[in-house]
């Protein structure tokens, strides 16, 4: 048994690499999209605010699995053919973007209105106000929940195994298919996911502490 599992380790490592790659792409894309849409939600004109609000509430109101199937099976149906890897990344990015929008709204919303006004009063333009006054302050409120939420991306990525993508979850399933050693492999897989996510959450706790001292 041990031998068989040891034999499978390189294969699992490849799966883990894919899991991390998917998670990284999702985290980066969703950060960009979520921050832009979050700014739209806070500062945009009413129609834009509604669009972002509906987007965020809809995405957060349905299971990730439904979102993944919707994107994966739905896009080809309307004529958009994405490789399954990118369909998976797109679906998870949509899910994570909705989260980032809410983190950003919360972080920016926590900054008193007077900060914007003082920045306006010295003649800063909208972009300058965001860059030099709002974002530096919002950053330390945004960071802890955002890093905490990175584990959601890693956990959510396990669902892409259902699209036939050989991530860690799928690699485990395939090794079990060959070796019939279900329990040891599931436990091994769980431990790997645990190690990755626990490390991430420890990092987020450390960052939270580091940024707490400048709270006014």
């Amino acid at each position, binding site marked *: 048994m041990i031998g068989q599992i040891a034999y499978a380790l390189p294969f699992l490592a490849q799966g883990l690499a894919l899991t991390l790659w998917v998670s990284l792409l999702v985290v980066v894309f969703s950060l960009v999209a979520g921050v832009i849409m979050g700014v739209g939600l806070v500062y945009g004109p009413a129609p834009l605010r509604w669009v972002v609000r509906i987007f965020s509430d809809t995405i957060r109101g349905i299971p990730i699995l439904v979102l993944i199937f919707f994107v994966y099976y739905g896009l080809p149906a309307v004529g958009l053919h994405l490789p399954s890897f990118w369909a998976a990344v797109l679906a998870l990015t949509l899910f994570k973007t909705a989260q980032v929008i809410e983190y950003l709204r919360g972080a920016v919303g926590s900054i008193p209105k007077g900060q914007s006004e003082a920045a306006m009063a010295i003649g800063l333009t909208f972009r300058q106000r965001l860059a030099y006054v709002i974002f530096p302050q919002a950053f330390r409120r945004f960071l802890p929940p955002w890093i905490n939420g990175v584990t959601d991306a890693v956990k959510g990525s396990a669902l892409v195994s259902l699209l036939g993508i050989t991530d860690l979850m799928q690699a485990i399933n395939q090794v079990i298919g060959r070796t019939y050693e279900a*329990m040891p492999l599931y436990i091994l*897989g769980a431990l790997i996911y645990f190690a990755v996510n626990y490390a991430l959450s420890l990092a987020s706790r450390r960052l939270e502490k580091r940024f707490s001292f400048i709270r006014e």
Partner: protein
Amino acid sequence: MGYALNFNLIWRHFDKLWGGLLLSLELAVISIAIGIVIGLVLAVWYVSAGRVVRTIIAAYVEFIRNVPLILLVYLVFYGLPTVVDIAYSAQTSFVATLALYSGAYLVEVFRSGLEAVPRGQIDAGKAIGLTPWQRLLHVRLPTMLRITLPALSNTFISLFKDTSVASVISVPELTYGAQWINFNTFRIVEVYLVVTAMYLLTGYALLYALRLLERWFRAAH
């Protein structure tokens, strides 16, 4: 592009979705009910226990929270029966998994709630001569519930959505129903639109009901 929406086949098979939704709710309610018991017992135990127990409970919480639900579902359904002599249906297996899973999240909610109960209230309970059990039942738990209700509501909604993972072991809940229609009728966009609406409506209805419950609870205590 130029995709023409046609919902006829969806309505013809709507019983799959409707039955699926009811099953999703059933799975959620039973799992959460068991999860609440696990969460309450462990949270109360945690705040009064010594180091060893605390470490064990924390390990359970951290482990569950850092592992994907789908893996836990596989582990309990496919893995566990290979090492212990038990047999259960996919549905029972999923309920057991989601109960353990929700338990881990609820321990955290309840624990932080218990720790937020003001010292003065417990002292007041002592002052009027309540026993530790009475203080727990009449002072700490009600106060803790009032503090945690908003977080609880969010956790419940999130657990309701998590029932969709049951589809991976063929439990015929809502997401499974959606996939069935997806593969058998190919009205793909339509079925996921309808299912999205069903999850949204149910989720927001649940949230509304829980908010009402919160208000009632606040008024009663």
